[in-house]
């Protein structure tokens, strides 16, 4: 009896593996995202966006007749876990390309894996170090932290606020943005008179903000970080009754930040992609059709408000797909070359034109300055203050 069961199981197993073989026409695209943990409000919309659009692309016939298979791993914001998953993507899943790396920390940990395996890696993280120095196989879609500092300093100068305090997260993005701000401040005419830091998973920043409040001569405060940290900084900021203007980075460009910070977020300014104010853009704006389209699709299918992080994932996927169409397939070398040849791709983050020396392809005009008012984003035009 046992022998008969064993033979039946073997035959069924062979039959199943036989049908699985017909799926070899699929191309695997990997994604290691931080859908849980302190960066979850970046990684979660990224994950949803990739799922949504890969399904959409497959429904329309795939890329050059090949269907895409998305392999997603959740690193929880931990760089070690990210590196392990990256190795798994390369060695076990044998992906053709990777769109992922939600945070600077996880991206930097994974870069060596993809450089060694010679597989194109489009990162979704902020720090400028990801593409400077330029690495052959690494690209990115979000604006850099240096651009965020420059945009914030421009607005500060316009408002004649030249002495600022900087509070940054001790995570890789926070540290990187802090370093960039310190580097570009003299050229921008801004003096960083006082600095504090916080841990990305901390739940109370009143000690640091108390010291900032007590420091003399400060005219504005800039917060460099992402995830829940800046939301708590903003809440504590109002709780302590600090009157100076507060600036955040594009690491908080999501309605979730506004929800967590509550009424404390009113008056906070930040640089962000046009995606957040899609409906308020003038019709002549080149990005308008793309951002409105993405916003409608994302909000209808997921029921959540759109965020720039999902937008960066969308841009990453589309740049990859367009490059694959031009390359006629997913051969790593040709794919990489075509990604580098991306020209005037209109995305949610801006208009992208890459080159061998520029693996981001965006300039400062791709950033808009926004202010939070009553739970919504309003645009601050470049000429006003």
């Amino acid at each position, binding site marked *: 009896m046992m022998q008969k069961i064993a033979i039946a199981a073997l035959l069924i197993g062979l039959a199943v593996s036989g049908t699985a073989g017909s799926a070899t026409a699929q191309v695997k695209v990997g994604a290691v995202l931080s859908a849980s943990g302190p960066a979850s409000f970046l990684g979660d919309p990224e994950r949803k966006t990739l799922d949504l659009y890969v399904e959409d692309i497959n429904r329309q016939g795939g890329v050059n007749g090949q269907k895409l298979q998305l392999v997603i791993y959740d690193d929880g914001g931990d760089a070690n876990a990210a590196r392990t998953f990256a190795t798994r993507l390369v060695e076990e899943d044998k992906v053709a390309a990777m769109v992922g790396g939600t945070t600077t920390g996880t991206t930097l940990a994974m870069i060596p894996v993809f450089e060694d395996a010679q597989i194109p890696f489009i990162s979704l993280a902020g720090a400028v170090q990801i593409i400077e120095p330029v690495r052959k196989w690494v690209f990115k879609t979000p604006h850099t932290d240096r651009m965020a500092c420059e945009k914030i300093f421009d607005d500060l100068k316009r408002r004649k606020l030249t002495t600022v305090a900087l509070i940054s997260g001790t995570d890789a993005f926070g540290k990187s943005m802090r370093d960039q701000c310190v580097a570009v401040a003299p050229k921008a005419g801004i003096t960083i008179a006082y600095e504090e830091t916080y841990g990305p998973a901390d*739940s109370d920043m009143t000690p640091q903000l108390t010291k900032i409040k007590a420091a003399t001569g400060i005219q504005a405060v800039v917060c460099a970080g992402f995830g829940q940290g800046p939301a708590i900084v903003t809440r504590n900021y109002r709780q302590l009754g600090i009157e100076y203007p507060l600036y955040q980075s594009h690491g908080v460009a999501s309605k979730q930040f506004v929800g967590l910070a509550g009424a404390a977020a009113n008056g906070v300014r930040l640089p962000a992609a046009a995606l957040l104010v899609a409906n308020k853009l003038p019709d002549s704006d080149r990005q308008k059709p793309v951002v409105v389209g993405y916003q409608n699709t994302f909000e209808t299918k997921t029921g959540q408000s759109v965020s720039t992080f999902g937008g960066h994932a969308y841009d990453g996927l589309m740049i990859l797909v367009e490059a694959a169409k031009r390359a006629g397939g997913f051969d790593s070398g040709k794919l990489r070359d075509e990604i580098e040849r991306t020209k005037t791709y209109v995305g949610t983050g801006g208009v992208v034109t890459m080159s061998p020396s520029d693996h981001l392809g965006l300039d400062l005009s791709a950033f808009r300055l926004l202010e939070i008012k009553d739970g919504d984003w309003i645009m601050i035009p470049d000429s006003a203050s």
Partner: protein
Amino acid sequence: MAAFLQFTFSGLTVGAVYALVAVGFTLIYNASDVVNFAQGEFVMLGGMVTIFLGYAGIPVPLAAVFAVFITTMVGLALYRFGIAPARDASAVTLIIITIGASIFLRGIAEIIFDKRFHSLPALFGSDPIRIGGASILPQTVIVLASALLIVCLLWAFIGRTLYGKAVVATSSNRMAATLVGINTRTIVGACFAISAAIGAIAGVLVTPITLTSYNVGTLLALKGFAAIMLGGIGSAMGAVVGGVLLGLFEAFAAGYLSASYKDAVAFVVILAVLFAMPQGLFGKRMVERV
């Protein structure tokens, strides 16, 4: 001076949370010699269940009551299926079981809820009260007052009621308590349930200040453990004092040294207590009579 006062208020805010977690630890420890590392998860469940019931349309006060009830059931289930079957195992084994339970509860929370951060509206609004140039949230005052109230109620229960005396009897000598006719299983189960309820109440009250997510339980449990070490394991007043002191140490370390060392404070405290004063501030000296 304003800065010192502000650091004090920040310390009281986080200290109140640690105090409530520590009180929960103490009750279970007193009844069964088990340090329940799933206590942090009870706090997490209190906050998260309230939030998600609120999303489902139930008004927040009612959702809070349901959340406390559900968490109490979880505490009972932990005792019934996790601790009771291992009845004669050593204390270390039981502690490891609670660690396993905490990982299990965290995993379930991750699946049932989601991985993001959530908040609740504060009871009396979020406008801070200004005192001497510093500000304190009304919610902090509520958490501190609740911690004191819970400790007073526990003290009255333990000292003045028959069931409370049964808890004391069970914790002194379980065999003798059984011989006298006390159903020790029911007593210990009840202590787990009460601890879970205290944790859930703490979670509901504290979420408007610290936000909550599926994984806040772990660090809370560790800091609550540091608090009971400081206050003296087995003493409810020690738990509250230990929790508040730990919060104050953290705030002063963050304010006067560097914010990066904040989390290290709890572990330095554990080491210092073990070296200098192992029974803690209010604990009884362990004396073995031969």
